[in-house]
């Protein structure tokens, strides 16, 4: 079936504006992850959703970041009052809940904050 999809592919915004990034996981995957990759860096974990359990938000860098997952499928990552340091590629991944195995990544959203 289809892989993980993310939208938009690219987003340019002005400092101080809010942005919403969307992730559509693979059908049937109950675990969903958000990661952030700043320029030339490795990936940094942000948040993890597992089925109906409370999400693991331990990687969110500030209270300007939030995420939700509606109906156990699509997830939205919201960044409020964006700052220039928020510029990065935001990657979403999914797999079977409870699995420590392969995560399937989407193509990412490149966010540029001017």
């Amino acid at each position, binding site marked *: 079936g289809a892989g993980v999809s993310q939208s938009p592919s690219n987003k340019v915004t002005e400092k101080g504006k809010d942005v919403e990034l969307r992730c559509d996981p693979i059908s049937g995957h109950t675990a969903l992850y958000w990661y952030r990759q700043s320029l030339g860096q*490795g*990936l940094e*974990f942000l948040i993890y959703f597992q089925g109906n359990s409370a999400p693991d938000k331990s990687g969110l860098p500030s209270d300007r970041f939030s995420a939700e997952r509606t109906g156990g499928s699509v997830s939205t990552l919201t960044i409020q009052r964006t700052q220039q340091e928020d510029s990065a590629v935001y990657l979403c991944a999914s797999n079977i809940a409870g699995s420590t195995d*392969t995560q399937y*990544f989407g193509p990412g959203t490149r966010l540029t904050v001017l």
Partner: protein
Amino acid sequence: SQQGEEDPQALSIQEGENATMNCSYKTSINNLQWYRQNSGRGLVHLILIRSNEREKHSGRLRVTLDTSKKSSSLLITASRAADTASYFCATVKMDSSYKLIFGSGTRLLVRP
């Protein structure tokens, strides 16, 4: 903070040569995975090695894991120009967490 460190940060080789990338980590792990990233976008899973395994092969890829040294290596044999990409190791810790902890990556350039 990231757990994994990789070396070299960048590697340039001639097509046909072998490429070796190393990864070190800090805590006990459930497994270690290698991912490839083209053009700074989506990651593609290459291979997974569990903490009770020492070596694994997949096509031209060979991964080793030394849990006593908390290190892993990825060997790409007979490299091709199409192997040019960034390669990341990622670990899953030996706790109830399922998140991947990524290294900083190795940028591989394979010259035709």
